[in-house]
């Protein structure tokens, strides 16, 4: 589209590669690669965690959903933030003190079971890939929007850049990159949101009032990029050039009725102020609830909105604990107390960020409702600045948004690839830097391939599903593993397989279009509502039934997780504790 946007993409990508390349000189041992040698101070670490966490779904997806589906979609942003609060309350400090690199390491160290190690590794790969796909999709549609390239070009570029960068720099490199990218993302969404708010904010709040379809606030000409079906809420006069319902018009005034139309590609329809906004059939709100309802209907075709809302709440609140690429960052904290402080700062940084997608979504609803016709809700944030602020300022803001979006894809997919490649090489290939590099390249290639198939799903929905799987498998494992002595390996395995497997099966059947409405659509489309309690229940009941298989090291592991560092340093001085390979513990400081 504009040169500014192109240079923004190039700049962000080069920045990532260059700062990442600094890591090559520093990263020498597998430890450097995996957890940045555990020397990262809280503020830096918190920004890095947030930078890694704020993905395409946060940057593009939420605002898009707010416009198309309504304010209930803001539950995603509340949930993504609250997930960190839950993480802080339940697992941050004990998990850091346990001193394992990854979730599979934690499972193995706590429960001593090679089978469980393998099961959790497979699940890391599943969740990681599920999360990686929307990032790739984001890159695809962004490049599509900026350069007009086909969808696969953006996907492929992101895949290549990220896999090569990880293969070269590992995690030491990307801690700095991630930190930088948080601030870049905050600016890239905050500045446009505030500027656009000031430029347009004194308008009416008419489109925010309940029970009314959106209307044009000023006379607007809508250009239909490709053949689209749309509906009108009320009859309206419009000036049409192009094809409408198979009839050709040359700048003619037409009385449109409140019914369904099909516009040909390139058709332009001019509406007067106060006319109802046409709603693309592809984007029609799936729920009959009004736009300002606090319920959420994505992925369930609008059935049982209250249950669907709780599905998302459970998935996002408890999903953050189980995300593989996030947990590994907690091991970069020097101690448990620092892990807590880091998490609190993360909650602050995320809260700040998530104010802005809401602002952008509401602005789009207010002033640029013609975006309803653009078809894909995920590109709304990209299109908004140049629509609201024509000319150079709008173009610059658009470039900023594009830069932020690319930062989001790059940072999240880097973090995910580190954990996927780490899990592959550490648990399946017997470790080592070379095998880590090859695993990073292979995992990147596979994700790029699959991303080409999922263009049809909304970003926030895809990421929400990754959260649901994490919440119904790793979350019970970690929470019970930390707080409950009687957890057995059989119980843990049963809970993971039934909870995670059930959730995955439900999501895949939704992707294949198994249920269209009613309870089926809710329970399959937002499965966390039943899979999370089920996973906890199965884990607890099975553990109680198999108390004979309690691992022998329970007391030691519990002490390790819950003793403050000042005490455990004394208690373990001279005792070789090794839940996994622990090579670089900080020397005790008094």
């Amino acid at each position, binding site marked *: 589209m504009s040169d500014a946007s192109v240079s923004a993409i190039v700049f962000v990508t080069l920045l990532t590669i260059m700062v990442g390349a600094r890591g090559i000189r520093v990263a020498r041992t597998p430890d450097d690669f995996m957890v940045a040698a555990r020397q990262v101070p809280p503020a830096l670490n918190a920004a890095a965690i947030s930078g890694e966490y704020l993905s395409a779904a946060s940057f593009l997806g939420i605002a898009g959903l707010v416009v198309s589906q309504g304010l209930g979609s803001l539950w995603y942003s509340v949930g993504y933030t609250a997930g960190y609060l839950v993480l802080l*309350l*339940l697992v941050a400090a004990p998990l850091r003190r346990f001193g394992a690199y990854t979730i599979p390491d934690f499972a193995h160290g706590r429960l001593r079971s090679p089978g469980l190690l393998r099961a959790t590794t497979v699940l890391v790969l599943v969740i990681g890939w599920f999360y990686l796909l929307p990032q790739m999709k984001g890159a695809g549609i962004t490049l599509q929007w900026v350069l007009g390239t086909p969808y696969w070009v953006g996907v492929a570029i992101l895949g290549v850049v990220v896999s090569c960068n990880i293969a070269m720099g590992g995690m030491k490199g990307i801690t700095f990159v991630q930190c930088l990218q948080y601030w870049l993302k905050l600016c890239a969404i905050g500045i446009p949101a505030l500027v656009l708010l000031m430029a347009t904010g004194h308008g009416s709040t008419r489109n*925010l009032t*309940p029970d009314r379809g959106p209307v044009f606030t000023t006379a607007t000409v809508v250009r239909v990029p490709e053949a689209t079906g749309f509906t009108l809420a009320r009859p309206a006069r419009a000036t049409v050039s192009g094809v409408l319902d198979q009839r050709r018009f040359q700048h003619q005034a037409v009385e449109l009725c409140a019914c369904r139309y099909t516009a040909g590609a390139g058709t332009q329809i001019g509406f007067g102020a106060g006319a109802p906004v046409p709603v693309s059939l592809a984007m029609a709100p799936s729920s009959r609830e009004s736009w300002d309802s606090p319920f959420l209907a994505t992925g369930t075709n609008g059935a049982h909105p209250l249950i669907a809302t709780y599905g998302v709440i459970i998935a996002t609140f408890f999903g953050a604990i189980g995300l593989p690429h996030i947990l590994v960052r907690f091991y970069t904290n020097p101690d448990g107390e620092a892990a807590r402080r880091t998490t*609190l700062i993360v909650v602050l940084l995320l809260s700040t960020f998530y104010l802005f997608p809401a602002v952008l979504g509401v602005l789009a609803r207010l002033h640029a409702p013609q975006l309803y016709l653009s078809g894909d809700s995920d590109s709304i944030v990209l299109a908004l600045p140049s629509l609201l602020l024509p000319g150079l300022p709008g173009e610059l803001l658009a470039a900023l948004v594009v830069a932020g979006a690319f930062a989001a894809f790059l940072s999240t997919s880097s973090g995910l690839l580190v954990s996927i490649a780490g899990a592959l090489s550490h648990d399946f290939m017997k470790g080592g830097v070379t095998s880590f590099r090859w695993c990073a390249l292979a995992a990147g290639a596979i994700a790029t391939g699959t991303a080409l198939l999922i263009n049809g799903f909304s970003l926030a929905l895809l990421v929400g599903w990754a959260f649901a799987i994490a919440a119904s498998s790793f979350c019970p494992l970690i929470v019970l593993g930390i707080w409950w002595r009687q957890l057995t390996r059989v119980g843990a395995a049963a809970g993971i397989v039934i909870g995670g497997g059930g959730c995955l099966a439900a999501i895949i059947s939704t992707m294949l279009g198994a249920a269209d409405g009613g309870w089926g659509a809710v329970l399959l489309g937002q499965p966390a509502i039943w899979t999370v309690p089920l996973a906890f229940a199965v884990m607890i009941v099975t553990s109680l039934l198999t108390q004979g298989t309690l691992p022998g090291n329970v007391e030691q592991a519990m002490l390790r997780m819950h003793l403050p560092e000042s*005490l455990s340093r004394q208690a373990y001085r001279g005792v070789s504790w090794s839940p996994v390979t622990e090579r670089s513990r900080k020397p005790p400081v008094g």
Partner: protein
Amino acid sequence: MRAQLGLSLMCLTVALAVTASFPVIAALVPKISRMTVGGLPVTLVVLGFAFYPVLLAVGWFYTRQARQLEARFTDLVDPPTRPPDV
């Protein structure tokens, strides 16, 4: 550990009670989701802005309490004059 768990669960309950009760309240009293605050729909105000300070406050309270619990525990087990490194 028991005290830590109690603290965590208490904070979790507070946070969940505040946030997760909103859909139920809105479903039971549909009038609430029709209200506006200064021209903005109440859903936007609550989901877009109001929940974040609540989450932060709970998190801040928890971090402080957890640190104090640990300091007290350390003093109890390990009384020597060494200051607790928190």
